């Protein structure tokens, strides 16, 4: 997947994304980091084809993503966002079944059997008949992940998936994501707030600021005090923790 000289903005206001050119590494884990409002989520939407660039192009396997129908896109790219609510009671399996919709006609009823493997992957097979709202935040996030997996995507996009989760759940979720990447070769693209989490789990990192790419590359290349301080407009220091490795801390007086 490739972004070529992508600009995006609303007419009459400043661009949210400016001349963005980068390639999503196939089969790897990519994290996008940067300040709030730097354009991380906009970038994900562009990559998904949910919005179209004002100029430039977003391509998947050599074809512009905008030429695919929304169902075709949904069968290749799945998205997990920060927790969202449902408007009425739904059981876990009912939510996950919606992930199978790209493969069926609009009016089909989907069987329980069809979604079982995805519930098993996220370890929720026993909870299939429970109401989504009766689950903990971490479990709910796994339901959304199972829904995304039910799309059998080549690309899994995660928009701040660990927000609202405690560190234990964050760890579990990240482990699961790594597993999906190594075992099923799903390309992962994540927007993460936590720089350390991003650097630890990712093969590649895009550091962005004000809609522009300031550094793309292996996690190590982004581990640079000056670069990070500039991107976040904060004094940042990298320390070395024994048995962990480099750790980014923010120095505020």
């Amino acid at each position, binding site marked *: 997947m490739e972004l070529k000289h992508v600009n995006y903005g609303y007419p009459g206001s400043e661009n949210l994304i400016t001349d963005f050119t980068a390639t999503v590494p196939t089969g790897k884990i990519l994290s996008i980091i940067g300040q709030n409002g730097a354009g991380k989520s906009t970038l994900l939407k562009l990559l998904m084809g949910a919005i179209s660039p004002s100029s430039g192009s977003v391509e998947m396997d050599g074809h512009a993503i905008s030429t695919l129908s929304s169902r075709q896109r949904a069968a290749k790219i799945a998205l997990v966002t920060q927790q969202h609510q449902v408007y009425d*009671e*739904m059981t876990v399996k009912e939510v996950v079944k*919606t992930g199978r*919709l790209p493969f069926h006609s*609009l*009016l089909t009823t989907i069987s329980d059997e069809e979604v079982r493997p995805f519930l098993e992957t996220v370890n929720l097979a026993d909870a299939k008949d429970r109401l989504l709202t009766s689950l903990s935040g971490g479990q709910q996030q796994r339901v959304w992940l199972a*829904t995304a997996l039910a799309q059998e995507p080549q690309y899994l996009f995660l928009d701040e998936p660990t927000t609202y989760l405690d560190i234990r759940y964050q760890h579990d979720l990240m482990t699961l994501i790594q597993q999906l990447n190594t075992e099923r070769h799903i390309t992962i693209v994540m927007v993460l707030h936590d720089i350390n989490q991003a650097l630890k789990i990712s093969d590649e990192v895009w550091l962005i600021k004000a809609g522009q790419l300031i550094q793309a590359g292996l996690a190590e290349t982004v581990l640079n005090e000056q670069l990070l301080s500039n991107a976040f407009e904060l004094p940042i220091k990298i320390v070395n923790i024994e048995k962990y490795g480099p750790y980014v801390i923010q120095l505020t007086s």
Partner: protein
Amino acid sequence: MMKERMAYLIICMALILTAMLALMLGTQFYSLSQLWQALTGSQSAILSTVLNFRLPRIIAAMIAGGMLASAGAVSQSVFRNRLADPTILGVTSAGELFMLVGSLILPAFALQKQLLALIGGLVAFALLANRKTLRQPYQLIIVGVALNLTFMALTQLFTKGINVSSALGFNGITWSSVYSLLITGFIGLVAVLLMAPWANDLKLPDEQLSSVGLPVSAMRLGLLALVVYLSADVTAAVGTIPFIGIIIPNIARYFVGHDYQTILPFSMLSGAWLLLLVDTIGRIAVLPSEISAATIMAVIGGPFLIILIQRGGFHGIKAR
């Protein structure tokens, strides 16, 4: 599962029982044996009363009840609001207004009432549905109630001195209007059952729906068109009958759960039963006169709505 089957069994039995009672009761009481004799051909006077007056009315009440209940359930899904219902949101009163104004200023044409009610309903929805009302459940209800009152007042303004109310209601309904209600209603109800999975899908946020490739706006518009079709069709035949669309789906949720693929068929059956019951009671309560089903429904529906709100009728459906 067990509870669900019991609920279906009970409502089917209640429907059959009430229909039989409705055939028997009226200005003249007929026993079951009299009805049987009429059917077998030895009591032609009874047969004529039953065939010309009671049966068309029973069928009309059942189909209209089923249509109103499913219109209510579907609009609750589309608006993501358990209190949404075309009859209290001004959709049907707009239909009535358009029917009236149309009959005054337009020459008569085929399906005039149905088409005018449909246009009126669409106008009401256009005024009703915007970003704010879709996000704020209470705002939707308040705007809807205000629209409803406005359309009703406008209708009254136009009817001053002209008696049009006798044209609507179940009293004196003819076979020809029953036939057209049956045919159009059947089409609408089949469409409701086919589109039931969409009502379930709309429980998810729009963002999630588009990420699994669903045409959210098209689905929502399709369901809304169905709601307008159903409620306008009933309004054209028998006028506005309020609250069935709120009472029935909410009771249905209690008995058969949250899945629209079971809520909708159950709502059809129980809507048919409730309207038939109410109409039959209205028919015999103050003999030789009668009380309209709409009046009785308003009397029951108001308090039900209040109880629903106070007991947290919004449970699970929140403003975003």
